[in-house]
């Protein structure tokens, strides 16, 4: 049914437009119609030749130029980035080295100061101790002196007291020799 429809329409339209189609050899399949070959070859040669010329002289050099520029630019940018990266790495290394040095220095200074202070303290303590020891020995000497003096006085006082006591007890004062002997014995 569809084919009859197609055929009727085919027939009716063909009747109208067949006049110009007659100009070419009707019935030849157009791609195999040799009469058109010369024209097709000529115009293909002209148009394709022109296209080839435009491509090779204008379009492709321009395109490859654009791509090359971009490649160069990107390569340059990457190189620049690498250089900057290296620079920053070097700066970081230098900074770290400086930091380590400073830390070492600080450590050393702290150590030195500590040692110096310790030595100072030691020295002053030694001095103080020495002064104290001196004062102590002086004091001891004085004490010994005072003590000796006091002890000397004690003998005299004891002798006097004993003489007085003996006199009071027996009414007669003992001799000095006896007194000294007695006092010495008692004091021992």
């Amino acid at each position: 049914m569809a084919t009859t429809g197609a055929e009727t329409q085919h027939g009716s339209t063909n009747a109208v437009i067949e006049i110009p189609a007659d100009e070419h050899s009707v019935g030849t399949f157009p791609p195999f119609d040799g009469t058109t070959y010369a024209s097709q070859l000529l115009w293909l040669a002209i148009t394709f030749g022109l296209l080839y010329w435009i491509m090779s002289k204008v379009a492709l050099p321009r395109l490859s130029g654009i791509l090359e520029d971009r490649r160069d630019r990107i390569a340059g940018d990457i190189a620049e980035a690498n250089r900057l990266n290296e620079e920053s790495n070097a700066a970081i290394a230098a900074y770290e080295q400086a930091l380590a040095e400073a830390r070492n220095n600080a450590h050393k200074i702290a150590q030195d100061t500590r040692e110096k202070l310790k030595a100072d303290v030691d020295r002053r303590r030694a001095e103080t101790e020495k002064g104290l020891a001196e004062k102590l020995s002086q004091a001891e000497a004085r004490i010994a002196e005072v003590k000796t003096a006091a002890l000397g006085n004690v003998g005299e006082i004891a002798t006097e007291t004993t003489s007085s006591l003996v006199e009071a007890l027996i009414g007669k004062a003992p001799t000095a020799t006896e007194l000294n002997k007695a006092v010495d014995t008692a004091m021992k």
Partner: protein
Amino acid sequence: MANDPISQFKITKLVPIEVGGLDLSFTNSSLFMVATTAVVATFLILSTSGRGLVPGRWQSVAEMSYEFVANTLRSAAGNEGMRFFPLVFSLFMFVLIANLIGMFPYFFTVTSHLIVTFALSMLVIGTVMIYGFAKHGAKFLKLFTPDGVPPVLFILVTPIEIISFLSRPVSLSVRLFANMLAGHITLKVFAGFVTSLIAAEGLGIMGPVFSVLPLAMTVALTGLEFLVAFLQAYVFTVLTCMYLNDALHPSH
């Protein structure tokens, strides 16, 4: 005529020219060849006129086509093959745009004529032969005596190689021509079914209803034909690159 799938390939004279008995008329085919060249050249020149470091949309397309063809050529024929780049690029763009222009309704498909595709493939084979002999001289004939084959077998292998070499322009041109021809005929036939079903008197209301089926087929085929248009241009280019590789390195 509307339903005749062959009439779309008919060549009509627009400006009759005849030189020495030869019909060199400017025809509808010539017009679309001019259009193809104009589209390719205008597109590439305008899109790259900015020479943008950061490409715009059109420049991106131009660069993509450049890189695409360049990669195809480089992978098939190596860096030496780049000397043929203008030729290969022109062929690819010409065939691709001619195929795509042919996808517009009522437009003529330049590549649906065998003589055009045959001329293009002869251009390729001619380049291969001329360059091959010019560069390698008689060594170019090593193409027919592959390495690693015992000399005794050359009696068998060489004729095969020669036949395969001679059939290259035929297969290259017929592949493109037949694909474009068959695709357009199929499209036209299915599109014709739509109108004939609608016009069919015996079907009544069912005619327009059934016509949806060939219409859907036409839509699907249109998509397929766009794919074929690109694919055939690509296949033509890849094979061109491989043949050029033979011209550059004949001893396989």
